[in-house]
């Protein structure tokens, strides 16, 4: 069955530091992978997605993620974090009969120190 693991529940970084949020997935075929971000009081906003092709994908707000099939990972990175990046980040894989069902990780809460 499909599943997603985000091993880090809470990460704290200083503003300007680099960031990597980890995501591991379990899926039998080529996965459709997503990263979403949720700010307080807001919905889940799509940061980026991977369906096929180049394994390094670029997203909004300066984020990127790299798909590594051998490691079943889809880690999210940003070279320099801004205070406005503080939020909760969710990794997800699409599955189900129509690939419309998203399986989410538990989320990683990011705190940014000034």
């Amino acid at each position, binding site marked *: 069955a499909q599943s997603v693991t985000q091993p880090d529940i809470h990460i704290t970084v200083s503003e300007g530091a680099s960031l990597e949020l980890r995501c591991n997935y379990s899926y039998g075929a080529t996965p*459709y992978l*997503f990263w*979403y971000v949720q700010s307080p*009081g*807001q*919905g*889940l*906003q*799509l940061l980026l*997605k991977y*369906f096929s092709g180049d394994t390094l994908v670029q997203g909004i707000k300066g984020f990127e993620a790299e798909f590594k099939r051998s490691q079943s990972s889809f880690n999210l990175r940003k070279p320099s974090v801004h205070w406005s990046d503080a939020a909760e980040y*969710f990794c*997800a894989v*699409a599955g*189900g*009969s*129509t*690939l*419309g*069902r*998203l*399986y*989410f*990780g*538990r*989320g990683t809460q990011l705190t940014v120190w000034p």
Partner: protein
Amino acid sequence: EPEVTQTPSHQVTQMGQEVILRCVPISNHLYFYWYRQILGQKVEFLVSFYNNEISEKSEIFDDRFSVERPDGSNFTLKIRSTKLEDSAMYFCASRDRGDTQYFGPGTRLTVL
């Protein structure tokens, strides 16, 4: 930019009562979803809806749950005989022919 909206933002109800959570998906989208997140747990899929019928549902979506698209713009989730364990944040999402789901801000349901 078009967005998914949900009302109310917070709903409080007594155990055993019925609640209706409302969503307005993005115009022209074809696929509609409900998810929920119990505090401290993962976001979980409830149901998907396409062409006026349920296309997939999870084991959470039992006989107390139902969905409806009563007109061209609204998409509702009804929960009958609410239980304490129904307390959660409920998210609506919609998708066009692409593969990206767009989420609303959520409705926090509290069952007392």
